[in-house]
């Protein structure tokens, strides 16, 4: 009895703690700032898209949205390609070099990204890569390679050896084995890694903050910080921007829940 009651109460409390702020944001994006402050929990008096119109007419957020999309897509695709290629090489190489490379890459897992920012900033300034979207892509790829290689190598090692052997007897070389055996078999792992990369890249603040100062090159999280300054305490406008920045992730999460959960927990367990 005690167990059941405490179970229900604690589950309900945490559910409320997530549902209420979510509704405050959704409803808030349709309210005026005054209405949001006075009645934060109530349904909006009218479902007015005024905030959205103001935000989109500014045009800035569309640019930010585009920048985030470009950076995220390219970062994820390049990382997946480069990491899967390397993971296959590491998993299949039978000499010590493979082991050494694996260690070298996993070294990057122990280092918090923020401890590398000084060197990254200096290098990117020297190479003229600050205030460019491809600079952002490069640092995203370089910094997410360790975790991606870690997960994918573990997967490629699990593929039964016989599958490769029989193809190798038919004369298939490594690149062919990668393309026709390893990649098709690893679709679920690749999807999980892709989602993981998608979420952390789309949401990242550190690298854009470090490398981008030009407002037409800012990504959404960085732009959100600016909005806060610009709209001072106008939380209904800020929530509208939060909605725009979060909608792609939420839609993806609701339509591919399993992959999301496995991707983000694989990143956790192995990171």
């Amino acid at each position, binding site marked *: 009895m005690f167990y059941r009651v405490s179970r229900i109460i604690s589950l309900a409390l945490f559910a409320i703690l997530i549902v209420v702020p979510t509704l*405050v944001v959704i409803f808030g994006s349709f309210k005026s700032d005054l209405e949001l402050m006075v009645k934060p*929990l109530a349904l909006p008096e009218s479902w007015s898209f005024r905030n959205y119109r103001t935000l989109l007419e500014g045009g800035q957020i569309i640019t930010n949205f585009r920048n985030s999309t470009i950076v995220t897509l390219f970062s994820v695709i390049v990382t997946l390609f*480069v990491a899967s290629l390397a993971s296959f090489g590491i998993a299949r190489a039978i000499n010590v070099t493979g082991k050494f490379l694996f260690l070298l890459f996993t070294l990057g897992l122990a280092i918090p990204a923020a401890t590398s920012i000084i*060197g990254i900033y200096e290098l990117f300034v020297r190479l003229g890569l600050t205030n460019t979207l491809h600079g952002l892509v490069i640092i995203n790829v370089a910094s997410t390679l360790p975790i991606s290689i870690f997960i994918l190598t573990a997967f490629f090692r699990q593929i039964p050896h016989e599958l490769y052997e029989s193809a190798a007897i038919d004369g298939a070389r490594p690149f062919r084995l990668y393309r026709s055996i390893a990649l098709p078999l690893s679709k679920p792992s690749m999807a999980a890694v892709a989602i993981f990369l998608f979420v952390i890249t789309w949401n990242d603040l550190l690298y854009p903050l470090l490398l981008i100062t030009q407002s037409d090159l800012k990504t959404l999280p960085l732009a959100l910080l600016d909005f806060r300054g610009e709209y001072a305490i106008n939380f209904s406008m800020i929530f509208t921007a939060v909605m725009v920045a979060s909608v792609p992730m939420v839609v993806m999460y609701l339509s591919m829940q399993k992959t999301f*959960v496995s991707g983000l927990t694989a990143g956790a367990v192995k990171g």
Partner: protein
Amino acid sequence: MSKTETGARKGASPRPKNKLARANDRTLLLMTLPALLLYSIFYLYPTISNLRYSLSKWDGFGVPEFVGLRNFRKLVTDDDIFNKVLSNNIEFTFLVVIFQTALSLIFAIFLLKNSRGSTFLRTLYFFPTIISSVSVAMVWQFLYEPNLGPINVFLNSIGLDFLALNWLGSETITLRAIAFTQVWFHTGQMMVVYIAGLQQIPAELYEAAEVDGASRWQQFKSVTWPMALPTTAVVMAYTTIQSFRAFDLVYAMTQGGPNNSSSILVTLIYLTAFNEFRFGYAATQSIFLVIFILALTALQRRILRTRY
């Protein structure tokens, strides 16, 4: 396993094939090259170059001036802000690890069995994980707003006025308020890790315990907890690292303020470099942080291993 594979392969291939195997090995190593180059040039090299910058005085623009170990001496002997932020970080990590681990374990136990309700709640609890730290920071800034924010309005309305604090503007409470948000943010993710771990525990163990008339608490103490220890180790290790990486959340919520009271090491490093233009000193702080994390991880592993 890999040893037997290697042996079998070597034994099976006659001499001319060995040449092919070696060529294949070269191809395999070539496949790692793009990753190796990108990672070494753009991530490993900048990280290692901290060692060089840490020995210099540098504003980020001019030429670094070599100052030997002066930065290290200052960091260790004469830097109140660094000491304060270090103890902030230890408190933050401690709070987050304890509460996030405990809550995620409790919710995992409560939602372990598949039912429509549990599936829904698992989806809901996991949901914050996909939102950006900046968005989460904005939402909680509103909730924590001292005068009109929903939390204080609620506390005032039920007569708990003395609890309606200035959550993000007070030197004593702000760090804890951010820790609370961090736990809210990531508990669902760790709950999923726990659920995966708990599902591995053989049902027979619970059946046997039930036959022996063990209460729920006894079952937890003698079956769930010991069997879930490896998962606990993973959750605690990850949560620790995650708490040291909470740059986005802290920066977006308070930028470490007021008066550095909510700063953690990663935000201090950023602010030292990019607000105070003391790049050399920030590099020294980075080196300290890396060593600190490596030591902490090693210690944690050791403690958890002796507990098995």
